[in-house]
C-alpha cells in the first residue's frame, strides 16, 4: 500500500529524512516511532502528499504522488496531531462536507454518516457548532470524518492525545479491526504501550534515518532486550546516538 523508495527530504541545509525505504502492505498496522524532531511528521506529510521528497519516490496504492497525486489522495485519510475543523460548521455539516469531497453519493454518505456518528458516540453534540467542542470531541469528529469514505490507508499522528480512557480503548479496538479488514493503518505515536499492543511492525526513525523496522518481538531479539518496547526504543536510539558520535569523532580526527 505504501512504497517509499530512497526518499530524502532536505529543508535548506538540513537533511530531515535520509534515504528512507519503506514497504508497508495492505492490512498492516504499522507504528512509527522516534524522538522529537526525528523526521516523523515530515515522513507523514510526504506520505499524504502535503510535501514532496527532494529525491526518491512515494507511492500509495500504486499511485506515484508526483504524477498521480489526486488518485493517491482518494485512498488516504490523515488525522493530524492538531485536528482541523471549521469552527462555524456543526459536526454533521463537516462530515457531509468531507463525504462530498470524497465523491460519495448522497445515499452512501447518509448511511456512512449515521454509522460513524454511532461508532464514535457523536450523537450528543454532532448538531452543535464545532467551536464549542472539547479536544476529545474534536478528535472523535475528525476520526469519524477520516473513516467516512472507507480509506485504504489511514495515517494518524498521535491519535490518542486528548481522548478519555474509554475512547482510547475503543479507538484501539477500531484500529485493529480496520487493519484486519484490509485497511493499512500508519500510526505515529510517542505512546509506546499502544504501539506495542497494536502494531504488526514497528519502525524507529532517528535524526532522519530509519534505524530499526521489525515486529516488536523481532526488535527485542535484535537488541537483546527483555523489557518492554520502551526499553527497546531507548536502547535502539542510544545505540544510534553512540554511532553518530563515533562517526563525528572519526570525521573530526580525519580533518
Amino acid at each position: 500500500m505504501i512504497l517509499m523508495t530512497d526518499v530524502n527530504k532536505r529543508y535548506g541545509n538540513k537533511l530531515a529524512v535520509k534515504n528512507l525505504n519503506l514497504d508497508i502492505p495492505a492490512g498492516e498496522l504499522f507504528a512509527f516511532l522516534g524522538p522529537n524532531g526525528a523526521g516523523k511528521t515530515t515522513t507523514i506529510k510526504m506520505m499524504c502528499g502535503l510535501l514532496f521528497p527532494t529525491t526518491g519516490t512515494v507511492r500509495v496504492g500504486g499511485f506515484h504522488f508526483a504524477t498521480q497525486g489526486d488518485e493517491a489522495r482518494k485512498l488516504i485519510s490523515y488525522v493530524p496531531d492538531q485536528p482541523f475543523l471549521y469552527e462555524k460548521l456543526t459536526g454533521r455539516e463537516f462530515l457531509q462536507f468531507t463525504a462530498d469531497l470524497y465523491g460519495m453519493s448522497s445515499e452512501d454518505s447518509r448511511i456512512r454518516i449515521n454509522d460513524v456518528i454511532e461508532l464514535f458516540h457523536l450523537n450528543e453534540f454532532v448538531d452543535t457548532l464545532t467551536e464549542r467542542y472539547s479536544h476529545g470531541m474534536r478528535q472523535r469528529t475528525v476520526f469519524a470524518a477520516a473513516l467516512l469514505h472507507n480509506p485504504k490507508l489511514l495515517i494518524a499522528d498521535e491519535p490518542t492525545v486528548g481522548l478519555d480512557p474509554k475512547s482510547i480503548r475503543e479507538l484501539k479496538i477500531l484500529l485493529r479491526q480496520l487493519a484486519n479488514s484490509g485497511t493499512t493503518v500508519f500510526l505515529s505515536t510517542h505512546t509506546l504501550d499502544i504501539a506495542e499492543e497494536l502494531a504488526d511492525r514497528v519502525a524507529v526513525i532517528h535524526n532522519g534515518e530509519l534505524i530499526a523496522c521489525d515486529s516488536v518481538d523481532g526488535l527485542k531479539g535484535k537488541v537483546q532486550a527483555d523489557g518492554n518496547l520502551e526499553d527497546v526504543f531507548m536502547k535502539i536510539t542510544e545505540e544510534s546516538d553512540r554511532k553518530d558520535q563515533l562517526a563525528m569523532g572519526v570525521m573530526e580526527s580525519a580533518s
Partner: protein
Amino acid sequence: MNTERDQAAIFRSLRYQLARNGVRSMLEAGRLRLFIMILTSLFVAVFVFALSAYGFMELFNYKIPVKGLIISGLFDLMFFTLGVMLLFSTGIILYASLFVSPEARFLLTTPARADRIFAMKFQDAILFSSWGFVVLGFPVLIAYGLTAGVPLFYYLLLPIFLFGFVLLPGSLSAIACLILMRYLPRNRKQVLIGFVALMFVAMGYWIYRTTSVSRSALLDSNRDALESFVGQFKLARTSLAPSHWMTSGLMEAARGESIHNVLLPIALLWSNGLFAFLLASWLAKRLYRTAYDRTSGYGGRQRASRGIWLDRAMGRLVFYLDRPTRVLVVKDFQTFRRDPSQWAILVIFALLMLLGVRNFNLFSNSDIQGIDRFIIGLVNLCGVSILLCAGLSRFIFPLISLEGRKFWILGLMPISRRQILIGKFAFAATGATLIGLVLVVGSEMLLGLPWEGIALHALTIVVVAIGLSGLNVGLGAYFPNFRETDPSKIVVGFSGTVNMVTGLGFVVLTILLMAVPLHIAAVLRHLNSTQFSEFPWWVYLGVPVGLLVGILATLIPLRAGTRALETVEF
C-alpha cells in the same frame, strides 16, 4: 468521483453554511454588537458620502472651468490608490490562507483540487480586502451621481464597475504570491522587503514631484499650472491603467451619451480581470502544491534570538509599572520587533512623515508665510493623528485577539487580567506618544510655528496618542476574536472597523477642541491684518474639555475591556 464542477458546488455550499452559521452565532452572542458594527459601517458610508457630496457641490457651484479635469483626475487617483492597496492586502491575506492556515493543510490532504482550493481562498481574500473599498467607493460615486444629475443607469452600472475592478489587482497579487512562494521560497521576505522599498522610493519621488508642482500651482493659480499638477497623476491616467478604465467608463455613464464608450471600459475591466483570474487559477493548478511544499521546507533559518538593547530600553521607558507588567510590555515589544511585516510598515510610515517634514521645510523657505504656516501646521497635526490612529488600529487593536488559544498562558500567570491590559496600554501609549511627539514637534519647529502653537499641538498629540491607545486596547479586549490568527483579518473585520471609526471620531473631536481654536484666532488676525502678539484667552478654553475627552476615551474602553476580559474562559 467528483468532477471539477461538483467541487465548485461543494465549496459554494461550504461558504453558504459558514456564512449562515456565522450570522446565527453572532446574533446569539448579542444583537447589540452586531447593531454597533452595522451602524458604524453605515456611519462611515454616510460620512464619506456627505464629505464627497459637499466637495462636488462646491466644484459645481463655483463653476470652475476645469472641474471635469479635476474630477477625473481625482477619480483616477482614487482608483489607482485603492487598486495598489488591494494588490497588497489581497496578496498578504492569500499568503496567510494558502500557505499558513490549518485549513489549507487539511484541504491539501483531501482530493480537493489545488485550483479549487485556490479559487475558494481567492474569493475569501477578495471579499476581505475589498469590502472597505466598496464601503468607501460606493458613497463617493453615488455622491458624484447625485450632484452631477446623472442618468439612472449610472447607478445600476456601479456594482458592475466596482466588482469588475477588484478582480484585476486581486488576481495579479495572487499570481505574484504563487510565483514568489514557488520559485523564491527561501528569499521571500527579502524580495518582499525589496519590493516595498522600491515602491517607497517611487512613491517618495512622486510625492516630491507632486509637492513641487502643487506649490507652483498654488502660487500661480492658472490653468496651465493646474493641468501640470493633474499631469503628475499620468501613471493613473494612462489608457493602459485599469484605474483610468474605471474613471472613463464612469464619466461616460454619467454623461449618458454613448453606450459604446461605457461598455468598452466595462469589457476591459471584466475581460482583463477574468483573464488574470484564469491565469492565476491555471498557475495554482500547476504550482500551488509544490509552492506549499517549498514554503514549508524553507520556513526560515533557525537562529538563536536573544534580548537586545532595544528590549532593555523599552523596559526602562515603562519604569513606572510594576515588574510583572513591565515584563509583559517587553514581551509585546519583542513580538512586535521580531515580525518584520509589522515594523516594516512602521518604518514606511516614519519615512513618509520625514518626507513630509522635508516638504514642510521646503514650504517654509518659500513665499508661503504667516497664516499658511498655521494651516500647514494643523494639516501636519491631523496627518500625524490619523497616522497614529491607523497604526494603533493595525498593531494594538489585534493584540488581545492574537493571544488567541495561547491565552491560558497569560490567564494562568500570577497577574490579574487588568494588569495584562495595563501592560498593553502602557506599551501602546509609550510608543505612540514618542512617535507622535517627535513627528509633530520636529516638523513644526522646522515650520517655525510660534511656541504657543507647538506647545498646544504637542499637548494635543499626547492626548490623541494616550486616548487612542486606551481605545484600541480597551475595544480590542471588548471585541476579542480568539479564533483568528491573521491580524489583517481582525483589523478589517467589523469590530476592527468599529474601532477605527471610533478612533477617527475621537481624533476629530480632540483636534477640534484643543488645536482648532488657535488656528481660528490666527485666521481672524490674518483677516484683520494685525500682527501676531499674544493669543486671546478663548484659544485655551477647549483644552480642559479635550483633556477630559482624552481621559474618558482612555478609561471607559479600558474598563469595558477589563470587564470583558475578566469573564473570558480558556
